[in-house]
């Protein structure tokens, strides 16, 4: 039986007054880790499961099981139905209904990857380890990995949603250690692709070596206020933090610092932020969202002015708006939430080197840590660990680490003075690009 048939059969068992959604998935993955020229582990895994959501009189119940066994599905349906009894009625609760927005087709399945031989997967990880070790004599490799995943999903609802699809992807990654005397620094490199033919192993190896070696001899800088240039990778992480402030559900529940600010200036005029999962260049490009509606392009901030929030059908109903196709779900084990799918900051015209040339005193931040612990997207307080290179009179200088950069999200958006032209599509929900923020506090020695 196809997954769609399976989902349809569950939905057909809806009782009068019930909205039912069945989300079914089946997948497989390979994970190869290589160390010192040998396979450290080889994982070959299959998984499947179903999540069933039932809404009756505004009350929601949910259950899942990690199997598609017939009797288990019956049990899941029964549990979800039972769980409805304990929810509170919510006038806005409900499943998505088809909204007439056309799906922009995406090429999410790659036949070459599906046919790729196991031995060649191992060879990719071996080759990456060799290239990385050859990149610099000070480099050791902690692990070199190849991984791929295949997933097939189907969703059906009593409200008329019926979608299925399949998707695959792969990546290689390498973790490095660079030694100089007693000092050790770390780095990483990766390459992602729809198939292994798209990998750039040379680049992954070079970046992994560079990230570790460039920090050798780094010191803790003195504390001061300064201009910060974020590397594309760091900007992508920063946009990930911003995404939770424009989440329509957080806004509806009063948990966003932008909740009353639609139509207002919240960022500098050069800041135009778009969420566009229909762009095939985006690593997270997709055709449908987590509720089965068409994914679509949404302009969030236009030249500094807040245009709209992103919505699922639930948050849209609460806000009196339409879904923006931003329901996200982490698989069959949960119900959809709201999130950005593929954020991109509109690029500027100049390279990172040109941006740096204009900075008298500052720091190029190449890596950050602790975004999950020192950033509060509700209050806006922003503080994270950082490492990078000092900038003096427009020139890159000494490496620095073990310091923090801090401000508030509100100020950082207003203090963003320039965006680079160096867009990098990273394996995240946001694209990277260099970003200059003119006034942040650097805390070090």
């Amino acid at each position, binding site marked *: 039986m196809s997954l769609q048939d399976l989902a349809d059969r569950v939905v057909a068992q809806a009782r009068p007054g019930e909205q039912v959604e069945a989300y079914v998935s089946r997948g497989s993955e390979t994970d190869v880790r290589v160390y010192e020229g*040998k396979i450290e582990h080889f994982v070959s895994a299959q998984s499947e499961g179903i999540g069933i959501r039932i809404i009756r009189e505004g009350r929601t119940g949910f259950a899942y099981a990690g199997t598609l066994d017939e009797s288990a599905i019956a049990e899941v349906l029964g549990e979800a139905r039972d769980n409805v009894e304990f929810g509170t009625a919510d006038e806005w609760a409900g499943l998505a209904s088809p909204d007439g927005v056309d799906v922009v087709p995406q090429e999410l399945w790659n036949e070459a990857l599906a046919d790729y031989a196991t031995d060649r997967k191992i060879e990719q990880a071996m080759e990456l380890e060799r290239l990385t070790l050859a990149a610099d004599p000070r480099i050791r490799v902690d692990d070199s990995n190849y991984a791929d995943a295949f997933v097939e999903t189907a969703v059906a609802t009593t409200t008329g949603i019926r979608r299925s699809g399949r998707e695959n992807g792969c990546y290689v990654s390498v973790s490095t250690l660079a030694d100089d005397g007693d000092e050790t620094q770390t780095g990483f490199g990766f390459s992602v692709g729809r198939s292994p033919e798209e990998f750039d192993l040379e680049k992954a190896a070079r970046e992994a070596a560079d990230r570790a070696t460039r920090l050798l001899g780094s010191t803790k800088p003195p504390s001061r206020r300064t201009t910060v240039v974020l590397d594309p990778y760091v900007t992508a992480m920063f946009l990930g933090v911003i995404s939770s402030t424009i989440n329509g559900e957080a806004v509806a529940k009063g948990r966003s610092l932008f909740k009353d600010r639609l139509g207002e200036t919240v960022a500098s005029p050069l800041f135009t932020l778009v969420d566009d999962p229909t762009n095939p260049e985006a690593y997270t490009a997709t055709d449908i969202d987590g509720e089965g509606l068409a994914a679509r392009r949404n302009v969030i901030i236009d030249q500094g002015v807040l245009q709209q929030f992103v919505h699922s059908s639930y948050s849209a109903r609460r806000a009196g708006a339409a879904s923006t196709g931003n329901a996200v779900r982490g698989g069959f084990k949960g119900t959809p939430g709201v999130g950005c799918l593929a954020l991109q900051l509109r690029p500027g015209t100049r390279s990172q080197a040109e941006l740096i040339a204009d900075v008298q005193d500052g720091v190029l931040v190449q890596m950050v840590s602790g975004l999950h612990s020192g950033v509060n997207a509700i209050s806006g307080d922003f503080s994270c660990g950082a490492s990078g290179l000092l900038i003096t009179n427009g020139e890159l200088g000494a490496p620095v680490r073990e310091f923090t950069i801090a401000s508030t999200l509100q100020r950082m958006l207003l203090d963003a003075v320039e965006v680079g032209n160096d867009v990098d599509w990273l394996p995240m929900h946001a694209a990277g690009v260099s970003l200059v923020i003119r006034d942040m506090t650097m805390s070090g020695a």
Partner: protein
Amino acid sequence: MISQDVLQRVLATATRGGAEFAEVFAEDKRSTSAGLDDGRIEQVSSGRDRGAGIRVVSGDTTGFAHTADLSESGLITAAEAAASAARGGGGGVRTVELSRREATKVNTIERDPSDVPKADKVELLRRVDEAARAAGASIVQVSAGYGDSRRRILVANTDGVLAEDEQVRALMRISVVANGDTGMQTGFQSAGQTVGFEMFDTVDVEELARDAARQALTKLSARPAPSGSLPVVIKRGSGGVLFHEACGHGLEADLVAKGASVYRGKAGETVASPLVTLVDDGTMSTEWGAIGIDDEGHPSQYNVLIQDGVLTDYMWDYLRARKEKRAQSGNGRRQSYMHLPMVRMTNTYVLNGTDEPDDIVRSTERGVYVAHLGGGSVNTATGDFVFGMTEAYLIENGEITEPLREGNLIGNGPQVLRDIDMLGNDFAMGNPGTCGKDGQGVPVGDGQPTLRVKALTVGGTAA
């Protein structure tokens, strides 16, 4: 879950190609969660995860496959896949005699959560909502999550180990938002134990809710945290994550073996202030990281990692212990049957010192008092770590004064361990945590008495 003769046949299949080790890890987990937000019980969810992971080790290579099908044919198919992934050479039929190994007794479950009416679980959330909102007119939002799980595991391997355990946990997490003239602030509290629903006989969820609300309300008048290097006093039971990050991860034998830890080659050496004795203790009754056996069938243990400042031992799993020809330490853990085990912490804590907590604050001229820490992370190879302070105050002239806005603290593990210059006599365990490593999360606990680090970099914005 699986009969002994089936296990023996599956292990024989897994090693038919000549692999020296094979293991079946089976798991049957039932969980319930309920979420409250915006004044409503949004949803009650039930989950069932059941399956087995089969590991085959041949030389330095581990092959692994998992299946949701616990029938003999399902297990045999997975065993063949794991064996082929490990590519063992040689051949021959191997018979395995399994002998049952006893789990450490870490608790007694009085009320199995699956026997507790869902209405009782939901009622806890209603009480949380009411108590938090009653704490002040500025409280504008409350969300809370209830969770329980019952995880039955079985481990059988070609060394003859056969062990089973049942791990029951209950959890409550509360987040509160307060709104004031300076914007919004948040408060958080949680409690979690390796016990059944009886946890809520002793844990007062309303008190937890009021404490989360108090944090958010206090921070409405908070000023920006300082920027730069300062003495930091960490309240009892709130700073275990410091040790988890500053040295715990660095004492995991898999990272040490690859030279990816600053503590490699340091056994027997002084790595911390002589005040510090650090323990990892999977046997600690009812604590969040307590386990009867680890996920490789080894009974949980009390392991001293640092004694009076001297590094005594690392933490071990099967693979690393085998390589070093030494005993495992009960630290081989995994997120689920879909994951390979690796070295993980359980409950990691620092034993009491002798200082009076009040004296620690009084003897600090100017510094930061951290009453609640958020998460953290570490680079084990360099020892550099960060962790977030979610409730902190300024210390001025030996007194705790104004509340501070949130920020990260940053430091270097080995340096911070040496810089601990006062250690209190008021030990307490902290909040339940989920430790992430290589994409897997496992429940862990931590704890410490009030202590002072003579210098840490505070990542605020104020001069």
